[in-house]
């Protein structure tokens, strides 16, 4: 009986501590977010840093996003063909490829790829700057680390991911087209007109809005975990892992929530 009581108290204590830890973490994240938003909209602005981030987050992610969406479009056409021939619905392939890519696959896959490529590098870079006291050095030189490091990355992530996704949409649909025409033997003009007819503004728009959210999430998580990195190489390693894992999970959660908002 006594043993059971002690076990129960332990359980309460542990679960209470876990809940408190979650709230403390959420509080720290929201404080970081609030500080970041304030610094994004108040001068001085570091234009050169922001442009640099446009390049490194946007332009240099293009090959990864392009390849991912291209092969996804290809495999989507192939898979839908093998499924749809069973009930003679081959003509729906173009619609499936176009809608899946624009609504879901381009934003989510681009988001996840950018989380791996950009989120990790942001967390590692800012984490190393924290460990080597470069962030403290910025403060002592009268420059806010939020303005100099965080704001440019978040602005670039939020604005560049939608553009990446628009390009990914085109490349993904092209992937589906290539397989449909050259492997499955569809007529090019039919395929293209079917794709175009099914497409509505909302399909592309929802994907682009999702991309903006995902870009914001990836860069925010990268900056937050890097900024609060622990000491040494191990601290930076943990920060990098946390940045990628948390942004990937948040992307999947927000993808569902945004889909619910757009299409319910």
């Amino acid at each position, binding site marked *: 009986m006594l043993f059971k009581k002690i076990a129960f108290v332990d359980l309460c204590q542990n679960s209470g501590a876990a809940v408190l830890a979650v709230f403390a973490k959420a509080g720290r994240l929201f404080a970081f977010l609030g500080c970041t938003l304030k610094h994004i909209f108040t001068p001085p602005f570091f234009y050169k840093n922001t442009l640099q981030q446009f390049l490194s987050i946007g332009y240099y992610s293009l090959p990864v996003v392009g390849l991912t969406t291209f092969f996804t479009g290809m495999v989507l056409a192939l898979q839908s063909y093998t499924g749809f021939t069973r009930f003679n619905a081959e003509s729906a392939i173009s619609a499936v490829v176009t809608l899946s890519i624009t609504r879901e696959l381009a934003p989510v896959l681009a988001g996840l790829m950018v989380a791996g490529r950009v989120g990790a590098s942001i967390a590692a870079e800012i984490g190393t700057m924290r460990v080597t006291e470069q962030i*403290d050095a910025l403060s*002592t030189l009268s420059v806010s680390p939020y303005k*100099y490091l965080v704001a440019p990355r978040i602005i670039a992530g939020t604005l560049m991911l939608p553009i990446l996704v628009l390009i990914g949409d085109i490349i993904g649909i092209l992937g589906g087209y290539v397989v449909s025409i050259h492997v499955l033997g569809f007529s090019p003009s039919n395929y293209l007109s079917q794709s175009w007819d099914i497409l509505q503004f909302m399909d592309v728009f929802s994907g682009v809005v999702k991309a903006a959210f995902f870009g914001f999430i990836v860069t925010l998580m990268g900056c937050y975990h890097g900024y609060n990195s622990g000491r040494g190489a191990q601290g930076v390693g943990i920060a990098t892992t946390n940045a990628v894992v948390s942004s990937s999970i948040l992307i999947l959660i927000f993808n569902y929530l945004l889909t619910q908002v757009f299409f319910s």
Partner: protein
Amino acid sequence: MSKTSTKKTATKPMIEMDHVSKSFGTKTVLKDINLTINKGESMVIIGGSGSGKSVTLKCILGLMENDSGVIKVDGRDIAEMDSDERHALMNKFGMLFQGGALFDSLPVWENVAFGLIHGRKMDRRQARKIALEKIDAVGMGASVADLYPAELSGGMQKRISLARAIATNPEIIFFDEPTTGLDPIMADVINDLIKKCVTDLGATALSITHDMASARKIADKVAMLYQGEIIWTGPIEKLDNSGNEYVDQFINGRANGPIAKHTEHKK
């Protein structure tokens, strides 16, 4: 040791710490610290690893918040300053970090000119000119200006970091373990440079170190931190006759004495 050149005229306190305490979780790092540094004075805080030296410096710089007590810089309580005043205060500071803390994404000259370009909004061309002068002042040629910090040796990085710390002609300069990790000759070069820079600028200096040769060279006054408390403070001339057995053990580097052999590692 020529401590006679010290400016004895100015006695206005520049930095005052009044009953300052700081804890991390259950671990108390600073206990009721009282310390006054007068204008134009060079104070050196000595103490072993984990005694709270770095935390003291970071509290004054506003990089960490003290739990209790008051820290005043130039007569103003730093906790009561708004962000503009804090910005203005930071413009008075220069800091030499232990590891240099140079921005590895920027070339050497931009590192040195960083405070001028971003803190003081100076034109880049003019800032570069001043940066080159400061690089020259720390005994390095203009040839390093366009290199990146990773291409420099440890001693060179420290000198560039010193140039960055003095680039804005600050009124108060902090030196965090300025000679750690340098060979004895380079350490002496850095000490000379610090002495020269502080004298030339007429700045107030606060250094933390456990290198006694460095402390003897750059200090006007010495304070010793032990387990988060200031256990002795006095002019450098009295360091050898402090009458404090902790200080005696520390400055003579003896393994046996009142200071426990095993000192706690840094938080």
